[in-house]
């Protein structure tokens, strides 16, 4: 910014008169982040951390960010969030489902502080929510998987039986069967978000059944590594895992929070922040596909990218009927789209999934 002499004089005068207020306005905006895992997990928390770094880079010294990692979902979370709120942070992102109640509680006690909670459903005038439509990425990667499979058996390493995971497995299956009706998806539950050993063994179990494309809804790169060893395809989770499978890593579904975090910080700086409920996907680049493996047949890659574009431009929704459940009963009529409210509590598998949801 070019400051003319006169303006500079005025500025100096103003600063002399209103020194206190001026100093306050020049204070950087303090933004806090609470992560459930270690930032070194190379998965979910790592991607949120990338978002925080993007905020720092974008705003420079206009903001000051703080993060707390490895925060357990429970009583301790409340303490951490309150600590951030009471130490001058004006905008606080709590990034895991289990932080919902503590965030809501602290938000009530600090009405002037703005809170944003990921993947939850509790909102207040100073508490917004945000999440990503990961299932869009799963559908598009499913299209490529359906084309690439020779055995018509795809594998899905699932973590916990919650709607988010069920929705992902369904989207992957629908994507695969949209191009290959003979494809089936075998789901294995490992009951952990993160256990490299168990994830590897789940991948081995799937490959022993003849699966030749493996998708995962767990956070470590162990399944990709196991796939590389046996020469089958694997689809990474949360971040680009191609380093672990030069030949096997087909693509990955990447969470990208940078755009959202930058927009929300900007809104606070502009004084335009309001409590919103955000569920973005390909359209806002909150979900992206990692670059396809160079050895992917061009036709397969282009088809998957075409589907990505269609979803991105809202010309197509992955959960468009007709959709049948596992018993073969039509649950969604032709042309109908499953509403968000139903997607959020999805607890049934679509036709083509082999496996059951633990009760």
């Amino acid at each position: 910014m070019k400051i003319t002499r006169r303006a500079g004089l005025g500025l100096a005068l103003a600063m002399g008169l209103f020194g206190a207020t001026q100093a306050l306005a020049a204070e950087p905006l303090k933004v806090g982040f609470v992560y459930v895992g270690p930032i070194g997990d190379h998965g979910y928390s790592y991607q949120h951390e990338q978002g925080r770094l993007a905020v720092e880079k974008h705003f420079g010294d206009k903001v000051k960010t703080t993060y707390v990692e490895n925060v357990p979902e429970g009583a301790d979370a409340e303490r951490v969030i309150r600590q951030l709120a009471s130490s001058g942070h004006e905008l606080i992102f709590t990034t895991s489902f289990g932080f919902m109640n503590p965030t809501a509680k602290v938000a009530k006690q600090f009405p002037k502080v703005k809170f944003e909670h990921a993947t939850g459903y509790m909102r207040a005038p100073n508490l917004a929510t945000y999440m990503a439509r990961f299932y869009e990425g799963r559908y598009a990667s499913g299209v490529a998987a359906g084309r690439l499979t020779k055995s018509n058996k795809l594998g899905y390493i699932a973590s916990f039986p919650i709607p988010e995971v069920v929705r992902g497995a369904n989207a992957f299956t629908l994507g695969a069967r949209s191009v290959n009706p003979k494809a089936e998806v075998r789901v294995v539950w490992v009951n952990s978000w993160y256990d490299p050993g168990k994830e590897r063994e789940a991948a081995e179990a799937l490959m022993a059944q003849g699966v030749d494309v493996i998708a995962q809804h767990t956070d470590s790169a162990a399944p990709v590594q196991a796939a590389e060893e046996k020469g089958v395809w694997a689809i990474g989770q949360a971040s680009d895992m191609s380093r672990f499978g030069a030949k096997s890593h087909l693509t990955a579904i990447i969470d990208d929070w940078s755009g959202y975090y930058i927009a929300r910080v900007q809104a606070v700086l502009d004084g335009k922040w309001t409590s919103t409920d955000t569920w973005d996907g390909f359209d806002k680049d909150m979900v992206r596909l990692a670059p396809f493996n160079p050895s992917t047949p061009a036709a397969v890659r282009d088809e998957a990218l075409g589907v990505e574009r269609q979803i991105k431009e809202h010309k197509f929704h992955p959960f468009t009927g007709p959709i049948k459940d596992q018993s073969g009963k039509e649950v969604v009529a032709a042309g109908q789209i499953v509403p968000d409210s139903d997607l959020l509590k999805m607890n049934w598998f679509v036709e083509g999934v082999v496996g059951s949801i633990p009760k």
Partner: protein
Amino acid sequence: MSEAELATLAAILAAMIRAATPLVFAALGELVTERAGVLNLGLEGMMLMGAVAAFGTAHAGAGHGAAMAAGAAAGVGMSLLFAFLALGLRANQVACGLALSIFGVGLSAFVGKSLVGTPIAALPALPIPLLSEIPVLGPALFSHDILVYASILAVPAISWFLFRTRAGLVLRAVGENHDAAHDIGYGVLKVRTLAVMFGGAMAGLAGAYLSLAYTPMWVENMSSGRGWIALALVVFATWVPVRALMGAYLFGGVTILQLHAQNWGVPVSAQILAMLPYLATIVVLVLISRDETKIKLNAPACLGKVFHSGR
């Protein structure tokens, strides 16, 4: 059975052995430590330090042999810290062990920061000539890496040491009654420190197996609670090495079977399976506690007790 089914069977058996191997190492090490009367709850921390040290060494370009040695050495280093506090300063062993676990989780994450996301060459498999060509059993049992074989060979070696050598007798005597052992003239602290160091080396190897062979990568907290399972296994095995091996194979096997059972349509609750090692341990504890002679026969009488030489 068809050929494909036989291949699946072999794959399942091989997976069970892989899953059990870190448990075997850690449990055997802890077993020796506890036989000397010391309870070291720091297995998880020592394993993680072993894992990160082994991975870092392999990543730096040193061979797998050096990497395994580094893993064991890191475990020993951690165990010496424990020995200093719990034996040297006579601090409470339970508290020190817990602290060691928590410390190991944090320290390994800290020193391993730059290693996250970097791949290394996995520890190669060493198929045993002839034996590995037997159908089913060959690929299941005789086509593993050197650490798997070592973990199995460690069982007779440790049994022999504990029950057939003079040094083993002294170690058990120290665990049974440290005052008596001291009065006869044995160096209680020296024996215990060596036992703790052995436990550390074995836990370090368990970690090295994880980061070099099982999932050749380094990520924070990659042991995912295996140290605690190994700890439970020692009690489950009533401090007998061969039972520790069987227990490890049982729990490793159940984990793997549960993944395959889902495909066969057998509904097995993963939560119940996760509880199983601890549940079995409680059952064994109750069973051996009912009978005083059984306790005397099995549990080291001075386990966890502080030794004061001046008394």
